[in-house]
């Protein structure tokens, strides 16, 4: 936690003048009286004055930023993003993720169809909880179609999930409840995507990594 202090010169390197000591004779009592309530100066040694030193103590957040960069730098990047996670699955390591919205049609038939979406509101909720921002890939009120097989976003931002005869399914059935892994920018300050992408400067973050810099 504490930054190292620039060492002042050792006593044998510090200024020392026997002549000066002789020209300013003082008894300990005189020195104490002179110093009064001056604890720092009481610690100074006669005949020695080390170079004064000041060193910043890094704040927790500064250390966190350093730690986050290291953690994220070691995490999977866009082309190798971890796949979607089915609810109830305990994967190791655990990556920060967002729950997908499910829409379906022809549900009463033998061939129901399903679509999965990333909801901007859910991404924002995670971002708020984690204290980071959200990149322009999605806004609070939009959705992105997500292919859980290829682990990629399909198309551009949508305002509804109900196009083409699909309807949102709530609550999400357990076997359709998937989470997609969130991808962060290089300094861990923004969610910039979900799942696979061609970007190599985006990173998945594990829970353990995250908690190590956001206690």
């Amino acid at each position: 936690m504490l930054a190292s202090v620039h060492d002042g010169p050792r006593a044998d390197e510090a200024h020392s003048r026997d002549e000066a000591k002789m020209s300013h004779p003082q008894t300990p009592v005189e020195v104490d009286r002179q110093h009064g309530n001056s604890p720092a100066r009481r610690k100074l040694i006669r005949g020695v004055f080390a170079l004064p030193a000041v060193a910043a103590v890094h704040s927790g957040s500064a250390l966190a930023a350093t730690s986050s960069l290291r953690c994220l730098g070691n995490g999977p990047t866009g082309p190798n993003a971890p796949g979607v996670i089915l609810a109830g699955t305990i994967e190791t390591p655990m990556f920060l993720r967002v729950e997908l919205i499910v829409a379906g049609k022809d549900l009463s038939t033998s061939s129901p169809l399903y679509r999965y979406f990333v909801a901007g509101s859910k991404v924002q909720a995670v971002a708020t909880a984690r204290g980071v921002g959200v990149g322009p890939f999605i806004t609070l009120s939009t959705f992105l179609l997500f292919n859980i097989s290829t682990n990629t976003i399909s198309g551009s931002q949508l305002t509804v999930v109900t196009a083409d005869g699909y309807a949102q399914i709530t609550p999400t059935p357990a076997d359709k409840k998937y989470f997609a892994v969130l991808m962060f920018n290089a300094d861990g300050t923004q969610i910039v995507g979900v799942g696979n992408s061609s970007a190599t400067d985006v990173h998945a973050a594990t829970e353990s990594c995250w908690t190590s810099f956001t206690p």
Partner: protein
Amino acid sequence: LTLPHFARVPGVRVEPLGEGWVAYSPLAGSTHVLNDSGAAVLELLDEQGVSSSDQVAAHIAVEVGLPPAEIGASIQPLWVELIAAGLVREIRASAQS
């Protein structure tokens, strides 16, 4: 012509920590570690009020029994660091002589 004087920033807290000192600046919202010499300079500013580098050096010189010029040379680079740390502020005063 002005002569730089220095004053301790109000509210700065200095506490012993092990063999050194920690100083918190409400101005900068940060904490710094100081050695005895650095803390002594802050302490003198607190006791003496607004002081020039030479005045601080003269006080310390008497206490440690070293020539003021040597102390002055040692503490001269410190002011920039103390100001940057939010522990001291510089006050420009008219030269007295």
